[in-house]
């Protein structure tokens, strides 16, 4: 059933006439034209579609658009602030923490959520926190290194989103 759904997307209010049962992933990619959020498995297993809902990592393929009513949704496109990359984005670049890049938005947003909960994670805590995000190219080592570097930079005073 079509209904009005309102939420904040990357800092700006949106109002949609939409079937509230549709998954957020497809509404983002089609109605809203934000294609940085990727489809990988459709069942919440791989993490390619991860977005932030009220700053927590959520699988957008498995959450309906009506479930984000009134909430703050951040996609990879919204992580940059005033033309400045987020420390995680910078660290992913500097550490070559990506190859084909398809899983990268989900990796970065999952890491964002992880660092928000635990700003000084150990190696094992990072690996555990990222465990359910899949990367086929095998960039895992550098993803962990990038998250460690970003954590360090963010602890040093850089603002976390």
């Amino acid at each position, binding site marked *: 059933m079509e209904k009005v759904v309102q939420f904040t997307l990357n800092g700006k209010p949106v109002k949609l006439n939409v079937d509230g049962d*549709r*998954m957020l992933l*497809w509404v983002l*990619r*089609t*109605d809203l*034209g*934000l*294609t*940085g*959020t*990727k*489809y*990988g*498995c*459709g*069942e919440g*297993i*791989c993490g*390619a579609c991860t977005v932030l809902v009220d700053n927590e990592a959520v699988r957008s393929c498995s959450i309906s658009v009506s479930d984000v009513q009134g909430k703050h949704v951040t*996609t*990879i*496109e919204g*992580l*940059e602030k005033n033309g400045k*990359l987020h420390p995680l*984005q910078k660290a*992913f*670049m*500097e550490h*070559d923490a*990506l*190859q*084909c*890049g*398809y*899983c*990268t*938005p989900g990796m*970065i947003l999952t890491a964002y959520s992880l660092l928000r909960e635990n700003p000084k994670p150990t190696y094992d805590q*990072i*690996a*555990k926190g*990222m*465990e*359910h*995000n*899949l*990367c*086929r*190219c*095998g*960039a*895992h*080592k*550098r*993803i*962990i290194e990038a998250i460690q570097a970003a954590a360090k930079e963010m602890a040093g005073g850089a603002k976390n989103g």
Partner: protein
Amino acid sequence: MDSDRITELDFSGNFSGLTMSRREFLKGVGAGIIILFLGGEAIAQRGGHQLPSDFNAFLRIAEDGKVTCFTGKIEMGQGIITSLAQMLADELDVSLESVSMVMGDTDLCPWDAGTFGSMSTRFFGPPLRAAGAKARAVLLELAAEQLKRPVDKLVADNGVVFDGSDKSVRVTYGELAKGKQIIRHVVNHPATDAAIKKPSQLKVMGKPVTRRDAMEKVTGKAKYAGDVQPEGMLYAKILRAPAHGATLKTVDTSGAEKIKGVQVVKDGDFIAVLHKYPDVAEAALEQIRADFNVPTSTLNENNIFDHLLKVASPGENVSRTGDVEKAMARATKVIDTTYLNSYVAHAPMEPHTAVAMIEGKKTTVWASTQSPFGAKDEVVRFLGCAPEDVRVIPPFVGGGFGGKTRNLQVIDAVRLAKLTGKPVQVAWTRSEEFFDDSFRPAAIVKIKSGLTDSGEIAFWDYHVYYAGTRGAEHFYDIPDSATVSHGSGWGGGPGTHPFATGAWRAPGNNTNTFARESQIDMMAVKAGVDPVEFRMKHLKEDKMRGVLSAAAKQFGWTAKPPAGRGYGVALGIDAGTYVAAMAEVEVNKKTGAVQVKRVVCAQDMGLCINPEGAKIQMEGCITMGLGYTLAEEIHFKGGDILDRNFDTYHLPRFSWLPKIETIIIDNPNFAPQGGGEPAIITMGAVVANAVYSATGARLLQLPMTPERVLEAMKKR
């Protein structure tokens, strides 16, 4: 025959690619200095294609001094968008930032066979460098004329030519290119045509560089095929058979037709539903009721090996030295082993996707493909149109690994665009991606080998079934040996595999290296000699001895493994690159679970263009290789693929990650070799040998699942 055409059509095999006339082509290229070159003859021969007669790639120095390279190769994560640009920057004496790559667009780039086989750097690199060198020579000649100085007094640096003794006498590349269209060819053997720089002169190549596509990829701006959404585009979902070989009996689409905005297309047995939202199309597809004739297939992942051996051809000699039969009689200890490999999926994170748009005569397709020109040929054949009416554009490709050389989704999208008159996107679901993958073939290797009294390898009799010849030949010093390949390589013939099979990252070599290096390890044990020492004793080539020593030193091979752990070693050659790997593993003796703790990998790939990029590829190979080694295996029954998502098909995860140490042997005097695949080939054997060291159990089948480890431990 029109001599003005860049390529002649070869109707004997496939259609050929770029067919516009030279005049049209040059008009499109614009002003500047243009160097045409032939990148990689070895690639072209593979496709049965006739090459464009004189070039298949070119570079341009434009009037603003910017350098652009046009090549049919594509970027799918392997990093050539960076390493190829590095080569050009160095040869041209320009900054890396001023070099752009235009890749894979069939309207802008000349024909190329595709991106696979770790060939871009090996075969495309040398002519690319020669083209850069040639362009630099042209620029120096022009500068000499303009500055009224002899060429040998001039220096080129950062896009500027100046008098070596008076820097104020200068002219930029852009100024030299202004208002001109100068076209040169690099012909014949590139080395004799234009002198490329010596290793000591290189400033950009050989230095670590960050990926050039990283910014787009971390901000979500990088476009993949599915991100292309032309006005009015519909998403299509296609009715799929429940098993391979099944045919449609009856279908009722009325349920789907009731959904608002859904368009149902029936074209013979081909049924699709389309909607402006992919999720609505998917929901509509679920409303279709269909009955299929499903052929009975009794094959599954367990009995497939008996089937494959039964239908195997007698085999072809790959190589033969001495007299194996005679040598067998001399051997005192003989080991006879059969090794098994299961079907493995490519499983790129981006499923196969294509967007097709037909406007008038012109068909444009954006596709996730490793072979845009192959896709173009298929579209031309399907539509029966002229080659110039089809353009295939590969945006960023979200992983390929050999799986995106088939372009089924492209034809589906074009078919539906034609039937509906609208732009159509076909993006496979994960389930479709598993079902219609061209899997790495299940394969068998049988090795019989023996030792002499003095502990030398007496003979080697090697038979590989369905993994092809890549990596089948051993590189040890064995006087009497035979290598025989059965079956028809990765593809298999009719009646062989129950579904499509094909090339998978370092095709065949993973299987061959697993078998060979396991067998060598068993021989070392039987001879009572340390596995590294045993290998050294039987190695002649310096390159291989070099990587083995380097790995052993870094790993600390001579130390004893900590309690409950084991060490393994494996060697291999792939795409011209020599690899030695060592691993430390821990085996849970109760559950059979294997945890790889540490991997050291040394690689000799000749001149390494981008060491950072090469290391990333090695790390990727090691991490991805853990999958086929420990867990990845396709289960199937009655023609159906039972693994349809990542819940049952397990890719390597963060918790699997060992400590990885990579070593690149600096060997700048040898031509660059492949880097995207070699390090993955040693993973099966290095882990199997380490598991043996830890438990005394010998694993002869990949993947080494916990159940197989427990079973092998029982057999000790």
